[in-house]
């Protein structure tokens, strides 16, 4: 069957499934809307958490970053999984024991302060909106390819679908839909990986494929890849670092603590019946996440190998070894029409030369071949996963499946995030602070309006994304890492941190991180307003803006503890509250106040 027909079929069928589930499990009370009425089994909840968690950044963007950054992209692999250890050991069971609906609610009560709650809401909204922008980029890429339009149109259509889908459901609908979405996305991710691994190495398990030898010889696959890329002047795949080792350390740490501070993930742990289940949920979530994350290095490395081999078909320097532009494969043309892949025949020979012209030694050598610069002037990293099955010549149904999977990943996360934004506005700000007398119905309505506003805003920024999907998402992690995680952790583990300390800490942490991001990436990400320029010589100890959240988090801890020492101690009843959170016994269902 035609690829387009198949894609419509797959995407249509999966969407019908999600919408069917959303209608079947439609939320009717606020408790069901926010936390699914707390009746979800740990394995099911783990699966839903995994879908919620693995977004367009994980599905669409990450393998692309791995493909081009090799070892350097390990920060995403470790950072986005290691955070679950922190979540399971330091936060999840205690927040579940506390038993409320939202993260700001915990912060407001633990720090006996409405100011703390408002600050937490602001931090949460900043982090979540940035995160949704990253999703919008991914959704735009997937839709533009699927409908064969340009990126902007793809983005508008995607916004419309996210709107219909998440405004309707609420948490109960979202949880069941996310289980379906997990199944779709993991199937879509692993099937092509298995095919490609089998093609390249003869080993059907991608995790072992990357450790195997090539199917057509005795060289190890990774050695081969290192050779292929370094022959064209690129950095060696398995050793290239992202910035510096210090930057990688900071980046990984930021992503880890950001994971444990992101509200839409934390909310998940409010939806299980018991404290025991909260611990197990984190474990199950990581099982389901690890299936994709351990496959990603294979997808990335093999996609890179296939890409290089498609363009450079023979020995470097031989004229006929570069593919002719007129004979470029179908996927190349398709991606050119989205504007995310661009070719420019610099030396006018009608063939494609793809090499690293920033490598001086190699550029000199390239000159002697008559090459006049890298002709693949734009290869958007975010297209790699979607293009991968086409590059590897896999059957059309696999390609259609991957598009459906990418959309599942982006939609499930966007929905979860929008829910976190909606609940913090309608439940924390409106019901909790400004208008305690509103009815459940009005609260639900306010939540839905907040979602719509968030979609519009994220869509606007999605038109001018500050980075690749995964990079944008990384900034969101920095914001969550520097504000919410420290406040939660100290709230449980340090009885001495008081109201003033927590507020000062959160404000310091998020301000430092935002200032650093804005001065390098532009104020509100608007191009041209970055007064320091986004380049490594201007970075603090070479730490990139995406990786700066952990510095903000350290400042948050230090300021909170310092200020608490100088101000009035924590009242007794709050100290008892903390002691009570620390033991599982006596946890009831989550209650409203």
């Amino acid at each position, binding site marked *: 069957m035609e690829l387009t027909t198949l894609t419509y079929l797959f995407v249509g069928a999966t969407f019908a499934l999600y919408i069917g589930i959303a209608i079947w499990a439609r939320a009717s009370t606020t408790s069901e809307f926010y936390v699914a009425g707390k009746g979800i089994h740990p394995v099911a909840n783990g699966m839903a958490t995994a879908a919620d968690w693995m977004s367009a950044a994980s599905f669409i963007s990450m393998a692309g970053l791995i493909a081009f950054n090799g070892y350097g992209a390990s920060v995403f692999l470790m950072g986005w999984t290691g955070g679950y250890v922190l979540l399971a*050991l330091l936060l999840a069971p205690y927040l579940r024991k506390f038993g409320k609906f939202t993260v700001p609610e915990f912060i407001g009560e633990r720090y006996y302060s409405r100011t703390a709650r408002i600050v937490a809401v602001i931090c949460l909204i900043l982090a979540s909106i940035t995160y949704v922008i990253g999703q919008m980029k991914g959704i735009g890429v997937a839709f533009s390819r699927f409908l064969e339009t340009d990126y902007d149109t793809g983005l508008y259509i995607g916004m419309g679908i996210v709107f219909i889908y998440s405004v309707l459901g609420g948490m109960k609908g979202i949880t069941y839909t996310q289980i379906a979405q997990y199944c779709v996305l993991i199937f879509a991710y692993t099937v092509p990986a298995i095919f490609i691994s089998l093609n390249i190495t003869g080993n059907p398990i991608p995790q072992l494929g*990357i450790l195997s030898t090539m199917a057509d010889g005795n060289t190890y696959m990774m050695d081969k890849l290192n050779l292929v890329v370094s022959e064209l002047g690129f950095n060696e795949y398995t*050793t290239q670092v992202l910035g510096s080792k210090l930057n990688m350390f900071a980046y990984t740490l930021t992503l880890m603590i950001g994971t444990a501070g992101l509200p839409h993930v934390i909310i998940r742990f409010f939806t299980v019946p018991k404290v025991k289940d909260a611990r197990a949920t984190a*474990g199950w979530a990581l099982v389901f996440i690890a299936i994709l994350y351990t496959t990603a290095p294979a997808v990335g490395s093999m996609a890179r190998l296939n890409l290089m081999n498609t363009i450079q078909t023979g020995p470097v320097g031989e004229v006929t070894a570069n593919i002719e532009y007129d004979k470029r494969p179908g996927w190349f043309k398709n991606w050119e029409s989205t504007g995310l892949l661009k070719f420019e025949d610099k030396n006018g020979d009608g063939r494609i030369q793809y090499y690293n012209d920033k490598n001086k030694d190699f550029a000199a050598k390239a000159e002697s071949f008559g090459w006049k610069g890298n002709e693949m002037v734009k290869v958007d990293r975010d297209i790699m996963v979607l293009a991968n099955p086409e590059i590897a010549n896999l059957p059309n149904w696999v390609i259609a499946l991957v598009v459906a999977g990418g959309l599942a990943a982006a939609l499930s996360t966007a929905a979860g995030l929008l829910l976190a934004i909606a609940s913090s506005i309608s439940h924390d700000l409106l019901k909790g602070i400004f208008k305690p007398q509103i009815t459940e119905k009005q609260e639900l309505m306010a939540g839905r309006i907040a979602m719509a506003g968030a979609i519009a805003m994220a869509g606007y920024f999605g038109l001018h994304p500050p980075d690749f999907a995964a990079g944008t998402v990384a900034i969101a992690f920095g914001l969550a890492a520097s504000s919410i995680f420290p406040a939660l952790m100290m709230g449980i583990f340090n009885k001495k941190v008081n109201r003033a300390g927590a507020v000062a800490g959160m404000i310091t942490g998020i301000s430092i991180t935002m200032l650093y991001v804005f001065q390098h990436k532009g104020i509100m990400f608007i191009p041209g307003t970055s007064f320091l320029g986004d380049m490594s010589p201007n970075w603090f100890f070479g730490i990139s803006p995406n990786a700066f959240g952990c510095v903000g988090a350290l400042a948050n801890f230090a300021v909170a503890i310092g200020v608490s020492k100088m101000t009035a101690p924590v009242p007794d009843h709050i100290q008892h509250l903390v002691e009570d959170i620390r033991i599982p016994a006596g946890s009831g269902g989550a209650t409203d106040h």
Partner: protein
Amino acid sequence: MNKSDYWKENLRLVAILLAIWFAVSFLFGIILVDTLNVIRVGGVGLGFWFAQQGSIYTFLVLIFVYTKKMNTLDRKYDVHEDK
């Protein structure tokens, strides 16, 4: 058998598990990566393997060990749910 002993045992367990968490990711995967890469496993260095595979498997084990140990600890100090 009191709650502060329960909390201390909990903290000790968390500290041990987090030490392992740090070792497999930051230590093996980043700081010592070049040293470990001397040991080769199937075409890649051991440090690279930890950074892209091994650390994730270890994280999984850590969470399930924690869950199991804490459930035992809850019962030992009689602070478990559904008594």
